[in-house]
């Protein structure tokens, strides 16, 4: 459904406020179908908020955006879809772990997408955001290995 709307009605995101309304519908849908996801998204937000120089805002096309010093680390839509911009080499390495996908709209770029379906996925999403944070704060990523817990 999300992919269908993005594909055929994506152009409407330029109407002010409409993407935010759409994200709110996603939130209502999530409440009715996967209410736990809302708790996991809150937990990610709470945790990321503790990181150095990280601010949280509303993404221009709906969802929660995580920023480092004014630059976007990534954003999560209310259906649990995490979108992030990484370098192509980091993306390549992460793709080999088999959990992330090409971004749902921007193929062949550093953008990735990751769907949060379980609590374990929420942990992995946080791990991905940490990689993004490290990339922006230190200019490089020392270790993208997956912690065992995830």
């Amino acid at each position: 459904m999300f992919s269908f709307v993005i594909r055929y009605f994506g152009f409407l995101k330029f109407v002010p406020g409409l993407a935010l309304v759409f994200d709110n519908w996603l939130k209502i849908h999530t409440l009715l179908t996967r209410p736990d996801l809302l708790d996991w998204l809150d937990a990610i937000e709470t945790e990321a908020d503790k990181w150095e120089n990280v601010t949280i805002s509303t993404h221009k096309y709906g969802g929660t955006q995580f920023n480092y010093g004014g630059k976007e680390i990534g954003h999560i839509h209310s259906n649990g879809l995490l979108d992030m911009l990484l370098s192509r080499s980091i993306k390549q390495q992460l793709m080999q772990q088999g959990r992330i996908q090409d971004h749902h709209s921007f193929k062949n770029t550093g953008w990735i997408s990751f769907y949060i379906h379980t609590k374990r996925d929420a942990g992995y999403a946080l791990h991905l955001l940490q990689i993004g944070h490290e990339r922006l704060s230190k200019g490089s990523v020392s270790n993208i290995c997956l912690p065992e817990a995830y």
Partner: protein
Amino acid sequence: MKQIFTPLIKGYLFSNLFAFALMGITKLFIPSSDSVLIFSEFVIIPFLMGIISTWFWRKRELRSRRLMWYSCINVFIAIGLSALFLKEGSICLLIVSPLLWTFITAGAFAGQKMFERSNNTLNISVVALLLLIFVADSLSQHNYENEVSDQMVINAPVSEVWQHVVAFKRIKKENKYWLFKIGMPSPVESTVDGYHLGAKRKCIFSNGYTFDEKIVTYNVNQNLTFDVTHQPRDPEIMGHIDILRGQFLLKDNGDNTTTLIGNSWYRLYVFPVWYYDIWAQSITRNVHLRVMEHIKELSENK
């Protein structure tokens, strides 16, 4: 008293009180708005209701799931109060509810973000801007008319179809359209007091409501156009839309079949048009189809 007026109850109470007070004041000072429900009443007010409720809930630091549930309860309270005080019917409330769900919950989350930042200047600016939009919208003229057209091919000559267009026997077939199935009145019969220009026609609906019509074009086997001279005021959809004119055009296809075109013109009294016109078109289309399918059946079974 403190135990009754908890922040949770205050959130529900004051957000709904605000909404009804604002609507009441608008009706009082802008009499022309009496019969029209505007965009702001379905978008800006619910959004402000969400913000107001979270102002009372801000110290509880609600998680998203709980805030969503609280806001959903607020939607149900608003719907219940609308039924009670605005005398809206259940189908009307069903139609309006997606807007209330969307904007009350959106307002609640916007409010949560606003009050987290504790930037009073920004918060007051946002609320003032929303109120400004409400005032501007309330003072604006609202007028919207549209036409819906449908057609179908009937395997009968025009002379046969014409007889059933002017008036038709009671429709006994079950309704297919989901809104008709859940109780929205559907057309069941049409009567006429004469087959000539100026004759009075009646379109009778399933709940007994009657639309009085006057034939203004009577070209046998070609064109039947009628103006609606009186329509019932019903708590359901009827109070929010006026059917102005109806028309049946018949085209002889030359192969013993007829193309029947049904046209209706209506005026909306509820806004935003981008939302309500979808419903108006859907309902009008299904009124057409129910009548036209009946005419097709009567004509083809002759």
